[in-house]
C-alpha cells in the first residue's frame, strides 16, 4: 500500500499525479528488526532524557530541539518503508547531531571532525540509491537490499557506523562533548548505520571484516587513556560484532546482530552515564587519574552512592563483556553460533576477550586502584614506567602528558571542553579541577540520574534473562544451557587474566599504535591547496575570463568539426 499523497494534491491541480511522491512513499515496514530497534531507541530516549534532566547545566531549547531531531530520526528510521523516507531520516539523524555538537562548548573542532565525513556518507547514500533505481530497483524497502550501487552504500554505512578506517569522526566527537551529551549521542548514529547495512546490503558477506574490526578496535580501546575515548573505541568494536552478526550467512545471525544492536544501545548508554558521573565526581577524564582525583578533591566520598555507581558500572561491564546472565552474552552467543568461518569465530572470541580485559581495566581503575597491575614489572623492578603507584602524581601527570598520543594532544588543544588528561597534566598536579568547570556537567538531581541508570541496568539484566521476550518468535530460540554459559564465560576469563598478567607489559606498545589522524589531516591540507590553486586561477583578470570563454568555444567547436 503506498500513500498517494499526490492524489490529493493532483486533484486540486486538476492534473495527473506523477513523479515525485507517488512511487516514493510506502507504508512503514513493521518487521521485527525495525520494530525492536525503534522500541529500544524509544526506551533509551526516555532513559537518557531522564538522565539529562538530572544534569546541570540545563540544556537550551535549541539543544533539545536538535537532540530531539537526532533521536526522532533514529527512532523512525528503522520503520522507514521506502528509500526516500530512509534517506530523509538518515539526514535528520545527521543534522540533529550536527546541531547538538554546534551547541556544545568547543563546537567548531567537533563539527569539523563530524560534518564532512557525514556529508560524504549522505552523498554516497544518495548516489547509491540513484544507482539502485538506475539498475531497475524500486524505492520500496523490500528486504532484498540494493541491486545497484553497493559500493557507495557500503561507504555510507561504513562511515555512519564508524567501521574501523572511518571511525575518526566518532572518536573525535563523542569524547570531546560534554559528558551527558555523549550519553545522548552514543546511542543513535552508529546504530543507524548498522541498521542501514541490514536494510540496504543484507547479503554483504562482511562477516570476517566485522570480526577484524571488532578485534582491531578493541586493541585501540585498550590503549586509550581518556574514559570516553576508551568507550568510543568500544562502540567501534561492538559495531564490528554487529556487522559480523548481520552479515553472517546462517539464520540466527541477523537476529543476533540486531539484538546486539539493541543490547549495545542499553549497556553502552549505561556505561556512558557511569563515565559521566565518574568524570564529574573525580574531576578528570584520564583513567589513570580517576582514583587520584577522588582522594584529594573529596576526602570523604559518599560511599553508598559510590557502591551504587559501582553496581551500575559492573552491570554495564559484565553486559558488554558477555558474562552469562547479562544481555551481551545472549547476543554474542547468537552471533558466534551464526558465523560460518572458524577464523571469524576465533576473532570474535579474541574480541570478547579484549572487551573483557578492557572493562576489567575500567572497573579496576575507576573503583579499585589507580595502578595497573603488572606482575612482570613488579618482579623485574628495573623500569619505573608510567602508572606506577609509587610515583608522585605530578610525575605521572607529566609522563601522561609526554606519552599522550594524538588523543591527548588534541584534548589539550580543546582546553575548556570536558576535563582532559592534557589540561590536568599541564597544571602539574593531579588535583581535580573544580567541579563546576566550564563545559562540564554536574549532577542536579542525583536521584533522577540514579533512576535512569537503574532502569538501564535492569533492562540489561532482563534482556539477558528473558531473551525470548525480545527476540522474534520465528528465530532460533536461544537456550540458556550450561554449555552456552561456559562458552560465553571462557573468553571473559581469558580477558580478565590478560589484564592482570600482561596488560601492564603491553601498554607502551599499545599506546604507540598509529592513528588515522594523519590521513585526515593530509586530506584536508590537500583540499585546502586545491582551493588555493582554484583561487589563483580566478585572478579577476577580465581578459582571462574572456579567454576561458573563447578557449571553451574553440575547443568545443574544433572537437565537433573533427567529428562531423
Amino acid at each position, binding site marked *: 500500500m503506498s500513500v498517494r499523497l499526490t492524489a490529493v494534491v493532483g486533484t486540486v491541480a486538476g492534473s495527473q499525479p506523477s513523479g515525485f511522491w507517488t512511487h516514493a512513499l510506502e507504508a512503514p515496514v513493521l518487521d521485527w528488526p525495525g520494530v525492536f530497534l525503534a522500541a529500544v531507541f524509544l526506551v533509551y530516549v526516555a532513559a537518557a532524557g531522564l538522565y539529562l534532566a538530572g544534569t546541570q547545566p540545563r540544556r537550551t531549547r535549541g539543544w533539545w530541539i536538535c537532540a530531539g531531531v537526532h533521536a526522532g530520526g533514529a527512532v523512525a528510521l528503522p520503520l522507514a518503508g521506502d528509500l526516500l523516507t530512509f534517506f530523509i531520516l538518515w539526514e535528520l539523524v545527521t543534522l540533529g547531531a550536527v546541531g547538538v555538537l554546534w551547541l556544545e562548548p568547543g563546537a567548531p573542532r567537533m563539527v569539523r571532525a563530524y560534518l564532512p565525513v557525514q556529508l560524504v556518507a549522505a552523498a554516497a547514500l544518495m548516489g547509491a540509491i540513484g544507482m539502485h533505481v538506475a539498475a531497475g530497483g524500486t524505492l520500496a524497502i523490500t528486504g532484498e537490499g540494493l541491486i545497484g550501487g553497493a559500493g557507495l552504500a557500503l561507504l555510507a554505512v561504513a562511515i555512519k557506523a564508524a567501521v574501523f578506517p572511518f571511525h575518526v569522526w566518532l572518536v573525535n566527537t563523542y569524547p570531546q562533548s560534554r559528558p551527558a551529551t555523549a550519553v545522548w549521542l552514543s546511542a543513535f548514529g552508529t546504530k543507524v548505520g548498522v541498521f542501514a547495512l541490514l536494510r540496504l546490503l543484507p547479503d554483504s558477506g562482511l562477516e570476517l571484516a566485522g570480526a577484524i574490526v571488532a578485534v582491531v578496535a578493541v586493541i585501540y580501546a585498550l590503549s586509550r587513556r581518556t574514559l570516553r575515548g576508551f568507550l568510543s573505541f568500544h562502540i567501534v568494536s561492538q559495531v564490528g560484532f554487529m556487522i559480523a552478526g548481520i552479515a553472517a550467512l546462517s539464520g540466527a545471525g541477523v537476529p543476533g546482530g540486531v539484538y546486539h544492536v539493541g543490547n549495545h544501545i542499553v549497556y553502552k548508554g549505561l556505561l556512558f552515564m557511569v563515565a559521566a558521573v565518574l568524570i564529574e565526581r573525580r574531576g578528570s577524564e584520564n583513567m589513570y587519574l580517576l582514583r587520584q582525583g577522588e582522594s584529594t578533591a573529596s576526602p570523604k566520598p559518599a560511599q553508598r552512592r559510590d557502591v551504587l555507581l559501582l553496581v551500575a558500572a559492573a552491570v554495564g561491564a559484565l553486559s558488554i563483556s558477555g558474562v552469562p546472565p547479562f544481555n551481551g552474552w545472549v547476543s554474542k552467543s547468537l552471533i558466534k553460533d551464526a558465523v560460518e568461518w572458524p577464523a571469524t569465530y576465533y576473532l570474535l572470541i579474541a574480541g570478547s576477550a579484549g572487551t573483557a580485559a578492557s572493562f576489567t581495566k575500567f572497573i579496576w581503575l575507576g573503583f579499585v586502584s589507580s595502578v595497573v597491575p603488572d606482575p612482570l614489572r613488579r618482579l623485574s623492578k628495573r623500569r619505573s614506567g608510567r602508572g606506577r603507584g609509587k610515583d608522585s602524581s605530578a610525575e605521572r601527570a607529566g609522563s601522561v602528558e609526554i606519552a599522550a598520543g594524538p588523543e591527548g594532544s588534541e584534548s589539550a588543544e580543546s582546553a575548556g571542553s570536558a576535563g582532559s588528561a592534557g589540561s590536568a597534566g599541564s597544571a602539574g598536579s593531579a588535583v581535580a579541577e573544580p567541579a563546576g568547570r566550564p563545559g562540564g556537567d554536574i549532577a542536579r538531581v542525583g536521584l533522577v540520574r540514579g533512576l535512569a541508570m537503574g532502569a538501564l541496568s535492569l533492562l540489561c539484566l532482563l534482556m539477558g534473562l528473558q531473551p525470548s521476550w525480545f527476540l522474534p518468535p520465528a528465530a532460533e530460540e536461544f537456550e540458556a544451557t550450561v554449555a552456552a554459559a561456559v562458552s560465553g564465560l571462557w573468553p571473559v576469563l581469558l580477558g580478565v587474566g590478560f589484564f592482570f598478567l600482561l596488560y601492564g607489559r603491553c601498554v607502551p606498545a599499545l599506546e604507540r599504535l598509529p592513528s588515522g589522524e594523519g590521513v585526515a589531516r593530509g586530506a584536508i591540507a590537500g583540499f585546502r591547496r586545491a582551493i588555493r590553486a582554484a583561487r589563483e586561477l580566478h585572478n579577476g583578470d577580465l581578459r582571462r575570463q574572456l*579567454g576561458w570563454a573563447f578557449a571553451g568555444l574553440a575547443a568545443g567547436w574544433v572537437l565537433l568539426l573533427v567529428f562531423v
Partner: protein
Amino acid sequence: MRTGWALLFSVALVGCGIVTLIAGVDLDTHGAIFDYAHHSVQHTGAVNVVSAVLFDYRGLDTLGEATGVLATGLVVAVLAPKARTSMLSVRLSLVVLYGVALVLPFVSVLGFAVILFGHVSPGGGFTGGVVLASTAVFFAVVYTVGGQQSYVLPMDTQKRIENAAIAAFLLVGFGGLVTGGAFLANAATGIPLGEPGSLLSAGLIPLLNLVAGMKVGVGLAIVVVCLFSE
C-alpha cells in the same frame, strides 16, 4: 592572457569559421528568405521595404531596441555628473561657430525629412534620429562655453520627449491590439494605407517612424552629451 594563447584561440576560431563558411559556400539563402519586396506594398503600403520590416513586420524588435536606448540614456545620465565639463571648455574659432550655426538648421531639416519620408525613400526613424542627435551633439560641442553645458533642449524636456515617444509607440501598439486584433497591428486596424509612394501612406508606419526618430534622436543626444560632460 598571454599573446601565444590569444593567438591560438583567435586562429582556432577563425579556422573554424573558415571551415564553416567553406561548407556553406553553395547555400542559397536568398531564395529561402521571405520575399518581402513583392508583398510589402500590398501588406503595409510602404515603398521602403526596410521600413516596412522594421516598423510593421518586426515592430517588436524596434520597440525593444528603442527601450534599450532609453535604458542606456537613463544609466548614463545617472552615472554622469551633470553640468560640468572639462573636455568642452576649449574655445573654438569664430569660423567654426558661425559655420555650425549656418549648417545646423539644414541638418535638422534633413533629419526630419529623413524621418518623415522614411517609408517612401531610403532612410527612416533610426537614420533620421541619428542625424537629429548629431545636431544636438554639434550644438553641445560648439556652444558649450566655460564648462557650462548647453543644450538644444533642456534635459528635462529631452527626457519627456523620450518617454512620450515610448508611450506613443506603445499606444499605437495597444490601439492595434484593440482595433486590429494584434499588438502593433497596422493595416489590420482598418487604417487606410493610402497610395504607395505618397507621404500619407503606409498606415501607421510614418507615425511610428516619427516616434522612433524622436526617441533615437533624443536618446542618443542624451547619451552622447552626458558622456561629453564627464
